[in-house]
């Protein structure tokens, strides 16, 4: 882009400069011409007053040789290239250019008349194929007895002479009516095309110096035409490409160099940017992906002191935060069930509760104390945790939530915090599966030479208040209400030998179930504060009661 605009500017400026210089050179040529004419005029006039010359002319009377010899002498004296003597009858008396001529009509009778009228005359005239600048002054003795015509030739030498001071090529053009103009002399070998020459003819009429542009031999030329007379003109011309050459070459080189440097710089820049921007960004993107997939421990290692470095720092802080949160949730999930933990993390932790229909399951190990007495504390804990884990899995497998472990007791919730349609069924199934899972633990106990474990389960369904119970710093998402107490009581009732039931459910629960279960009506219990007793049933875990 830069190259193009500079290039265009150079061409435009060069063209303007050439144009102005051509105009200036044209003026210079015209002035030079005028000066030469003036010079010749003065010389001619001085010659005209030369008594010796007057005497010679008066005495010559047909002695052409003497006259010619004298003319040669005077021509040298005045520094002219040509000297002609013309009679008052328009006849050439002698001509240094054409020594053989005498007594023939002069080539420019109109000019003689003009000189007679105005005292002198001058013009560029064409004799043969050559142009001459002639000055005509009278030979006075003391009246006009002849015309003295000194002149100079407009030839190649003159053209070259002028070219030394001008920067243009010079050509003398001869205009002929209804014909293509001819070249009289020129400093250059360049052939001027016909269409150009013909177009020049048209301009001669207005008599002013003219500027042209033309393509010659594939090159753009600027030309200036000077009118010297009706049929002779001077053409100054210069080639634009030639003028531009000294600039364009180095310019191209410079531009090429600059282009290379800028490409190189751009490449280096790209590499540098890649190093300090692209690569770190990629690292960050990778880090984000890792985090999205759960790897909160991942940090990015970007050691830069710029904005990217700051971004990396913030990123690492963020992952740390996420990691913390994750840890907390994880921890929380271990303290409460993951669903509750998720629920707690999701909602703003509040102490407000809500009334929900829940099915509460309580379980307890029969005679755990006696088991624990016989074992070292490590083993006790081992067994207990094993039991709690297995049972916890069963609860969660059935869509329940382990509310809390109290020693060897498990309190599980179904329908809280999220209610599924068949909460009661799921509680029932849980109870059955818990009894079955017990076998796994008992196998382990037997291997340790320990007595089998027995558990009791109580299930009730009721409207309860669910929420976070506790203070701001320490709370537990749980349910409270009479329904809860009844479930716990039902569990205790499994100790009653008469019932021989490991699972006791309330009628409300039974009524809430969708499926059929093998149950035995055990009777009614009275709840404190309530008049109507509650029917309770034993759930047989063994007989085909599985409803998955």
């Amino acid at each position, binding site marked *: 882009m830069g190259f193009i605009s500079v290039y265009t500017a150079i061409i435009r400026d060069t063209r303007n400069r050439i144009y102005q210089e051509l105009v200036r050179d044209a003026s210079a040529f015209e002035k030079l011409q005028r000066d030469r004419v003036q010079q010749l005029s003065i010389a001619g*006039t001085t010659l*005209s007053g030369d008594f010796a010359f007057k*005497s010679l002319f008066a005495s010559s009377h047909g002695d052409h040789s003497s006259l010619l010899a004298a003319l040669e002498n005077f021509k040298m004296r005045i520094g002219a290239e040509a000297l002609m003597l013309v009679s008052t009858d328009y006849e050439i008396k002698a001509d240094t250019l054409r020594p053989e001529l005498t007594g023939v009509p002069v080539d420019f009778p109109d000019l003689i008349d003009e000189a007679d009228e105005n*005292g*002198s005359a001058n013009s560029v005239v064409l004799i043969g194929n050559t142009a001459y600048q002639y000055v005509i*002054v009278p030979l*006075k*003795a*003391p009246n006009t007895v002849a015309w003295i015509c000194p002149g100079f030739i407009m030839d190649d030498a003159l053209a070259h002479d002028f070219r030394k001071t001008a920067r243009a090529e010079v050509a003398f053009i001869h205009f002929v009516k209804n014909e293509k103009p001819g070249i009289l002399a020129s400093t250059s070998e360049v052939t001027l095309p016909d269409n150009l020459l013909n177009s020049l003819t048209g301009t001669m009429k207005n008599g002013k110096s003219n500027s042209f542009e033309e393509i010659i031999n594939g090159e753009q030329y600027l030309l200036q035409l000077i009118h010297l007379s009706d049929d002779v003109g001077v053409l100054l011309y210069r080639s634009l490409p030639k003028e531009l050459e000294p600039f364009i070459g180095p310019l191209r080189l410079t531009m090429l160099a600059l282009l290379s440097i800028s490409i190189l710089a751009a490449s280096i820049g790209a590499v540098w940017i890649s190093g300090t921007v692209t690569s770190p960004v990629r690292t960050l993107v990778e880090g984000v992906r890792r985090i999205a997939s759960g790897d909160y421990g991942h940090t990015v290692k970007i050691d830069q002191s710029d904005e990217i470095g700051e971004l990396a720092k913030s990123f690492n802080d963020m992952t740390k935060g996420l990691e913390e949160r994750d840890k907390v949730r994880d921890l929380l999930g271990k303290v409460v069930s993951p669903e509750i933990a998720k629920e707690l993390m999701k909602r703003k932790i509040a102490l407000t509760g809500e009334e929900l229909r829940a099915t509460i399951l309580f379980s307890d190990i029969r005679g755990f104390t006696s088991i624990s007495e016989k074992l070292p504390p490590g083993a006790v804990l081992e067994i207990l945790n094993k039991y709690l884990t297995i049972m916890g899995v069963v609860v969660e497998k059935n869509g329940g939530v382990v509310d809390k472990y109290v020693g060897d007791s498990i309190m599980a919730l179904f329908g809280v915090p999220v209610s599924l349609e068949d909460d009661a069924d799921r509680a029932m199934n849980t109870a059955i599966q818990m009894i079955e899972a017990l076998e796994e633990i008992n196998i382990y106990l037997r291997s340790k030479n320990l007595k089998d474990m027995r558990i009791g389960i109580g299930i009730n369904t009721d409207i309860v208040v669910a929420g976070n119970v506790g203070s701001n710093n320490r709370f537990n998402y749980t349910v409270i209400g009479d329904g809860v107490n009844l479930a716990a009581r039902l569990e205790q009732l499994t100790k009653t030998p008469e019932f021989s039931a490991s699972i006791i459910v309330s009628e409300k629960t039974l009524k809430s179930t969708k499926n059929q279960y093998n149950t035995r009506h055990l009777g009614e219990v009275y709840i404190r504060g309530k008049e109507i007793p509650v029917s309770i049933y034993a759930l047989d875990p063994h007989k085909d009661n599985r409803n998955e």
Partner: protein
Amino acid sequence: MKTKFFIFIILLIIAMPPVISMAAELPHVIAYVISNDNLPVSDAVIYLMPENGTAPAVPPNTHATMDQINKQYFPRVLSVQKGTFVDFPNMDNILHHVYSFSDAKQFELPLYKGTDSSPVLFDRVGQVVLGCNIHDWMIGYIYVLDTPWFGKSGDDGKARIIDVKPGKYSAYILHPDEKGKKAPVQSITVADGKNTELKFTINVKQKNNKERAPSPSGGPTY
């Protein structure tokens, strides 16, 4: 007898003057010269050539004068009969150098002052143009004629040729500034006892002021 002779003599004496005067009184020719624009032309030379016989020759040692006054020739036009000596007194206090390359008389009077120059004999018929070698603008004309009967027109355009013998003549006109078609010859008859008048119309070009000395502010430029 003596008385008759005496009376004759007295009568003769009484009659003499008229006879003498009649015998001495010759007619003049008055020529009026105008230009194409009907303006009177001065410096025109009119001369008469007798149609029969020849004109009388100039008396020997006839002199005429061409002065140089104020760096000009005076008169500008002088006509003389062939054989006349013309004196060229230099009335200016500066040197002049009279010359002429005319066929009728080629001569020069190199730098001189006052009346030091000798008179010049003009013995050929024709126009003599005088110049001054050191004052390019000085120009004078001498017409050398083969007849005593000539005159020059004044500012009123009139030329007087006096004492012309009656007879038939060809009248010619000459003027240094005549251009183009020359005025034709006229035949006139000079009658006894009265003056003859004739008129010439000639084609005269404007007298250019290059024949003046340069004024102090500048000079004529060629």
